[in-house]
């Protein structure tokens, strides 16, 4: 087990760049992120800045290094923004005409339904009350259907208020850019969606290229966040690593809730009509990229602010969820090791000597954990158990495992 100076919280950062990888540790041990290349090589890859940095003399190296690093961060970010704006404009060009056409169609339909309705009432005046009521009910039902379709299609205001369908269209420039950003972050509210074949095909291609780009930006931001996490106050040094990592996961979770609460206050203020709980719910659903789309910010003026909040938040959230996942994975491995012992017991069923020895071993382990020794001792015991159990696995070469999927959260 690596101890001492190595950071207590372990964060996997894969997508930051394909060159930083994480070596899947042998069971029970903790290994920090392993970088295959020094920073300057990586940023030169990332930025496409040619290899000049490698040839630098030592004099102004640190300065240059910082600059390239900074350019690497911002360059990726700018690239993403440019890509998003480009995508949004293409979406608008593809979808806007169709949307206006459908809106006009809906409007005409609702108007027609209403006039039909009124006409048929005046025709049917002679009917008895019961007949008339059932007739009315039926007519109202069809009318309701038309209104419902129109509402879902985006025709929100009553038609008599006299606004043109073109003004009502949801695919304006800002909205389209916002839509593009929800695609790239895989939030996907679904309040506005492409309906034409061209729009859908473009959406596929746009997402296919853009999502990895966005993932790398988010991971980049996440690494900045996570770097802040690694330093722990000195009074915590004495606590055992298990408690420490649990504690840090808890702190991370609390920080996430705090960030969401701050966002919730912000949105409550900006949106005006949302309660605190509603905006908290909105921020949570957004930050986890679930994105139901039942609550969506309505005012286009601060869409950009919203997008930036989301991007930064995603970096944080993905890091924190990853930390918690890491905790899960560790305890999962412990449980698995115990289960392995159980299985051995079950398999050994017949031979008396073996079962006795295994049982002995097992009881020893259990009592170790039950005895309320100091946490350190307990941890050591678990460590040795785990190590013993994973001995055959240790012979295998370590598996370099990188999971880009983290940021799919």
């Amino acid at each position: 087990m690596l101890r001492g100076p190595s950071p207590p919280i372990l964060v996997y950062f894969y997508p930051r760049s394909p060159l930083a990888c994480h070596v899947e540790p042998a069971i029970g041990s903790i290994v920090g992120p392993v970088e295959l290349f020094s920073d300057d090589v990586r940023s030169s890859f990332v930025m496409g800045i040619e290899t000049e940095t490698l040839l630098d003399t030592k004099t102004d190296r640190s300065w240059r290094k910082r600059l390239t690093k900074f350019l690497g961060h911002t360059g990726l970010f700018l690239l993403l923004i440019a890509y998003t704006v480009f995508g949004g404009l293409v979406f608008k060009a593809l979808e806007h005409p169709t949307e206006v056409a459908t809106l006009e169609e809906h409007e005409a339909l609702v108007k027609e339904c209403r006039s039909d309705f009124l006409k048929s009432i005046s025709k049917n005046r002679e009917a008895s009350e019961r007949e008339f009521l059932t007739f009315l009910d039926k007519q109202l039902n069809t009318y309701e259907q038309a209104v419902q379709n129109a509402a879902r299609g985006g025709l929100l205001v009553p038609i008599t208020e006299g606004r043109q369908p073109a003004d009502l269209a949801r695919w304006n420039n800002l909205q389209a850019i916002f839509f593009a950003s929800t695609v790239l972050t895989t939030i996907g509210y679904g309040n506005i969606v492409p309906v034409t074949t061209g729009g859908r095909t473009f959406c596929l291609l746009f997402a296919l290229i853009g999502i990895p780009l966005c993932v790398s930006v988010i991971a980049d931001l996440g690494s900045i966040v996570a770097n802040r996490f690694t330093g722990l106050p000195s009074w915590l040094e004495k606590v055992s690593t298990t408690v420490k990592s649990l504690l840090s996961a808890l702190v991370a979770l609390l920080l996430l809730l705090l960030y969401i609460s701050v966002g919730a206050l912000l949105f409550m203020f900006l949106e005006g009509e949302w309660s605190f709980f509603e905006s908290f719910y909105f921020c949570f659903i957004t930050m986890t990229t679930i994105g139901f789309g039942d609550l969506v910010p309505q005012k286009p003026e601060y869409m950009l602010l919203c997008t930036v909040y989301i991007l930064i938040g995603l970096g944080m959230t993905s890091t924190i969820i990853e930390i918690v996942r890491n905790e899960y994975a560790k305890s999962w491995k412990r449980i698995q090791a115990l289960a392995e012992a159980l299985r051995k017991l079950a398999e050994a069923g017949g031979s008396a000597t073996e079962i006795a020895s295994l049982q002995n071993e097992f009881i020893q382990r259990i009592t170790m954990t039950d005895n309320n020794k100091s946490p350190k001792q307990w941890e050591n015991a678990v460590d040795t158990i785990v190590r013993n159990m994973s001995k055959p696995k240790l012979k295998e070469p370590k598996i370099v495992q990188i999971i880009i999927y983290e940021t799919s959260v």
Partner: protein
Amino acid sequence: MPSETVASRSSSYIQESPRRERTWGQKIKDGIRTFLAFMFSNVGIICLVVGYTIAGSFVFMTIEGSVHNTRTHKVAQERNKTAEKLWRLTCCEYNPLVEDPWKSSANESLLAFQRFVVAAVLEQGYEGEDYGGNRWSFSGSFLYSLTVITTIGYGNVVPRTEWGKLATVCYAIVGLPLFLLYLSNIGSILAQTCKWIYFKCFLCTGCKARRQAFMIRQESDYEMSIEEYLELSRAPEFKPQAVTVPITLCLSIIIGYLYGGAVLFARWERWGLLDGAYFCFISLSTIGFGDIVPGDMIKEGEGIELKFIFCSMYLLLGMALIAMCFNLMQEEVMHKLKVVGEGMRAVFRCNN
């Protein structure tokens, strides 16, 4: 021969330890132990994810299911009210021979009704009465729970009550990392399997010929030297580190899976092929707009439950597959970059 000695040793080992007759209690104990071990294996995590989803679907079913009926009831009430009002207007309040005042007041009440319907659709998710089924049936809630922890979030079904929203938040906090654990575990296992299969199918071209040569040598009485024996009998070793699967294969696996899903959904839901592919992609990339969702167009009683379950399985497997492909692709890219980097480093060292 080494293999023979191993075999004889193991057989003698078995004979040395005669199997004790086990009582029923012991058998049950062993069974439970095996079961526990199984549960905590990698199959166990699949069970855990599915179990968590099922538990979630029961919770959401109880919280949200009751709201549905009152909503439908309210709209029906409003409709009746409007009809009655119109009747009163027509029969009693106005002179039927003068049209204008009647028309304006009828229009007004209709507009009020229209506003009510719009509000019901937008704020409470009213979907009309012809969608007879409750969205929060068991399978609907199951799909909902799954879309929460996978972060797909279609949004065609959303909690309307405060408690439902709160439950969703708590459910996601626990469920998201759990699902990620599932993805990384199953993804890496699938990646290993994929590598092994790839190794067996494409990289092991020399294996067969060598084995044949080995068999021929064995059958003839040709005396082999030890080196020769070792050389021939050893199968090329499978090293997970050394094998990298080409990116094109990964991409074709993803595209094949998408295409298969598209064809299936297109047939089941009567969508076009592009719509099916669009749905599969939007779901598996966890964007999840929710504009196209299985079971939307179907009335109840046409195997809708089965379709929800099938869709869930498709998503669970598909996301693990994509995680696997990302795993493999990253490894390949890293391998390539490592080679390039080492080459470059060597070049610059020479220059200096």
